[in-house]
C-alpha cells in the first residue's frame, strides 16, 4: 500500500481516483466514506470532489471519482488513500490511467493520457522506492457480475501489453498492481441484471454476452480496503471465529461500518448500553477504543464458561478486557452520579423485541411487594417489559448526557415499510442527525443504521422536555417501531400457503425435539 507516496502533481491539475465499492450494503457507501473523510480532516467539496463517471448517471454509487480540481488537497492526498483503507465497503482505490465505455476506448485513453510517464519518473514514490526498471508488477482483472475464463482474462490483459512494463511479473506483493475493471449493471444483491451465463448449465447467453459493459477502467492500485491483497482482513473477525455468541450478535461487517460511522479511533472511549454478547463493543476495541458496556442481563455478561464469555472473545484478538457493569439503561441516573461527558462514541444495537425482548427494572404489578430482609440475599430482582419507544428515548437521552461535544451515537433501528425517515426517527435537542443508512431485510422489514452527533450541551433540568420531544408525531411514530415481532407474524400470516408451511415447520420442530430426547436417552443408557 502506498502510504508514503509523494504525488508530484502541480496545483490546479486534476488528479482522478476511482473508488471501487464492494457491492454490499449499498445504502452505506457514501455515509461511511464521508464519515471517514471527515474523521481524517478532509473536507468533501473543498479538498476533493465527487465526479460522475462518464457513462453512469450521477446517482450511481457503484463507482465514484474523487478529483482535486481545485488543487487544494496538497499533502492531504496521502491521508486520503491511507484513511480510505479503513472503509469496510471499499474494495480498491486506483489512480485512473484510462476509462471508457468499452475496453478499446479504455485502452485508447490510457495510451493518449500517458500517466505511465509520470509513474516512470517516479518522483511521487520517493527516493527510497524501487526504480521503475526493477519494479515488479501484476495486472488484476475485476469483472463484476460476470465470469470470464482465464484465457478471456488474458486477452483483456494483453490489450494493455503496449505499456510494456520493464519489471518482472510477480503475483504476491508486487511493487505495482494494475487493475482493469469491467462494470456491468448489477441488481441489489450483486448479481448481473443481464447475466453472461445461464443459471442452470452455465452456458453463455449470446445476447447478454454481446451487451456493452457500463464502463471499463484501468489504473494503478493505490490502496485496497477490506481485502488488501487477499489477506482476509475481514474474515478473521467473522462471528464464526468467536467462542462466545448469542442469537442477536451483530455481524462483524456491519459492526465495523458502525465504528466508522461513529468515528471510533485509537484512544476513543466507546460505550454500549445494550452490550449483550459484546459483538459491537469488540469491534470498537478492534479500532483501538477503550470499551465500556452495560446490560440488564447478567447471564450474557458472565457468558457460558471461563472460556466462553465476552472477555475471552476480547483476549482472542489480544485486546485488553472491556469494562462490564450490570445496570439498566432505563435508569442510568440511578446507577451513575452526575458526571461530565465521558464517551467519544456510543455504538449499540438496542433490543427491539424481534428476537430478544427488552426488559427494565421494576415490578410488573402496580402494587410492589417489599423484598423481605431475609430474602434479600438470594432474591432475583424482577423486571418488566421495556417498550421500544422508551428504549429509544432513554438511549438518546443517555447519549446526550454522556457524550462529549462532537461525540457520536450510532444505533440500529428496525422498521416496517410505513416508517417515514424524515418524521418518524427519534430525535433529541442536543443531537444532530448525521446519516441514515437503509438496509432491506425482507419485503416488509428493513433496518436503518442511524448516526447522530452531539452538538449542544445537555441541561439536566430539561430532561422531561427532551424525552417528550423524542417522537415528532408522538405515539404515532413511537408505535411504528414498537411490536415489530407481532407485525412480522401478522404479515407472514397474510402470505399464501402460510398454514401449510406452518404445519411443516411444526412437524420439523417436533421431529427435532424427539431426536434430541432420543439422543439424550441413549446417552444416559450408554452410561
Amino acid at each position, binding site marked *: 500500500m502506498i502510504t508514503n507516496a509523494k504525488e508530484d502533481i502541480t496545483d490546479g491539475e486534476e488528479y482522478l481516483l476511482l473508488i471501487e465499492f464492494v457491492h454490499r450494503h449499498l445504502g452505506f457507501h457514501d455515509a461511511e466514506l464521508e464519515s471517514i473523510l471527515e474523521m481524517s480532516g478532509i473536507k468533501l467539496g473543498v479538498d476533493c470532489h465527487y465526479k460522475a463517471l462518464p457513462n453512469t448517471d450521477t446517482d450511481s454509487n457503484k463507482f465514484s471519482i474523487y478529483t482535486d480540481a481545485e488543487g487544494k488537497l496538497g499533502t492531504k492526498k496521502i491521508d486520503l488513500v491511507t484513511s480510505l483503507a479503513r472503509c469496510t465497503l471499499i474494495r480498491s482505490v486506483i489512480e485512473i490511467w484510462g476509462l471508457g465505455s468499452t475496453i478499446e476506448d479504455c485502452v485508447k485513453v490510457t495510451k493518449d493520457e500517458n500517466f505511465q510517464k509520470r509513474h516512470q519518473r517516479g518522483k511521487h514514490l520517493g527516493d527510497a522506492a524501487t526504480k521503475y526498471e526493477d519494479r515488479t508488477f501484476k495486472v488484476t482483472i475485476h469483472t463484476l457480475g460476470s465470469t470470464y475464463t482465464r484465457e478471456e482474462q488474458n486477452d483483456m490483459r494483453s490489450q494493455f501489453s503496449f505499456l510494456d512494463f520493464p519489471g518482472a511479473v510477480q503475483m504476491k506483493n508486487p511493487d505495482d498492481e494494475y487493475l482493469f475493471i469491467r462494470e456491468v449493471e448489477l441488481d441489489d444483491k450483486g448479481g448481473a441484471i443481464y447475466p453472461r451465463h445461464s443459471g442452470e448449465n452455465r452456458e453463455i447467453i449470446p445476447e447478454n454476452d454481446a451487451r456493452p459493459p457500463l464502463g471499463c477502467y484501468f489504473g494503478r492500485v493505490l490502496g485496497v480496503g477490506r481485502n488488501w491483497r487477499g489477506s482476509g482482513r475481514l474474515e478473521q473477525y467473522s462471528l464464526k471465529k468467536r467462542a462466545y455468541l448469542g442469537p442477536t450478535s451483530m455481524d462483524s461487517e456491519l459492526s465495523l461500518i458502525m465504528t466508522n460511522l461513529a468515528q471510533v479511533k485509537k484512544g476513543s472511549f466507546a460505550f454500549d448500553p445494550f452490550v449483550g454478547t459484546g459483538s459491537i463493543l469488540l469491534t470498537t476495541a478492534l479500532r483501538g477504543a477503550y470499551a465500556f458496556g452495560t446490560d440488564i442481563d447478567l447471564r450474557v455478561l458472565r457468558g457460558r464458561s471461563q472460556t466462553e464469555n465476552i472477555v475471552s472473545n476480547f483476549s482472542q484478538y489480544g485486546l485488553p478486557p472491556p*469494562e462490564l457493569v450490570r445496570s*439498566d439503561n432505563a435508569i442510568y441516573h*440511578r446507577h451513575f452520579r452526575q458526571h461530565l461527558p465521558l464517551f467519544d462514541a456510543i455504538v449499540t444495537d438496542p433490543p427491539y423485541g424481534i428476537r430478544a425482548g427488552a426488559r427494565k427494572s421494576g415490578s410488573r404489578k402496580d402494587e410492589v411487594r417489599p423484598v423481605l430482609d431475609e430474602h434479600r440475599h438470594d432474591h432475583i430482582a424482577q423486571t418488566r417489559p421495556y417498550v421500544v419507544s422508551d428504549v429509544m428515548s432513554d438511549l438518546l437521552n443517555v447519549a446526550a448526557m454522556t457524550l462529549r461535544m462532537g461525540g457520536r451515537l450510532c444505533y440500529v433501528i428496525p422498521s416496517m415499510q410505513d416508517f417515514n425517515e424524515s418524521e418518524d426517527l427519534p430525535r433529541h435537542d442536543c443531537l444532530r442527525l448525521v446519516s441514515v443508512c437503509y438496509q432491506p431485510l425482507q419485503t416488509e422489514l428493513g433496518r436503518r443504521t442511524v448516526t447522530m452527533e452531539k452538538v449542544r450541551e445537555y441541561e439536566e433540568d430539561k430532561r422531561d422536555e427532551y424525552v417528550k420531544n423524542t417522537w415528532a408525531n408522538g405515539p404515532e411514530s413511537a408505535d411504528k417501531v414498537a411490536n415489530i415481532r407481532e407485525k412480522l407474524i401478522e404479515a407472514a400470516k397474510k402470505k399464501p400457503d402460510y398454514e401449510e408451511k406452518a404445519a411443516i415447520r411444526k412437524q420439523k420442530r417436533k421431529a427435532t425435539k424427539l431426536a434430541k430426547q432420543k439422543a439424550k436417552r441413549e446417552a444416559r443408557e450408554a452410561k
Partner: protein
Amino acid sequence: MRLLTHNVLRNNTKAANGSNTPLRITATEVRVDEPTSNNDPDAERREVEFAKNMLPALNWDTLIEGAKSMGLDSLPPSVTPELANDEGFLRALYHVLMDVHLVNGMLTCTETGREFAVTNGIANFMLEEDECEVPK
C-alpha cells in the same frame, strides 16, 4: 471493575435520598494488569491523553478512597495544576484507572448499607423492584 467505573457509580435510589456518597469497596480479589503500552510512544501518548480527558470528570477524593481499599496508596491528596500537565503523573493515573481491577468483592452504599456484589470483574447494579419507581 475498574476504579474509573467506581468513580462514576453511585447508589442513587430513593432510599439513598440523593446523598451522592461514594461506594465503599470491600475487596476480596484484586488484579493489577501489566501496562499495555509496551514502551510504544504512540500508546503512551494516548494514555496521557485519556487520563487528561478523564481528569475533570473524576471525583478525586472518591478515587483516593477507592484506590486505598484496593491496596494502592500512592495517589497525591489533590491534583495541582502542575500535576495535571505532568506526563509521568498522568500515565500513573491511567494505570490506576484502567489496569487495576476489582475481580471479586463488594460495593457498599455508606448511606443505606445497600450492597452491590462484584463477581468476576462484573459489578451487579441491578435494583430490586421495591427500589424502583412505581410504573406510571
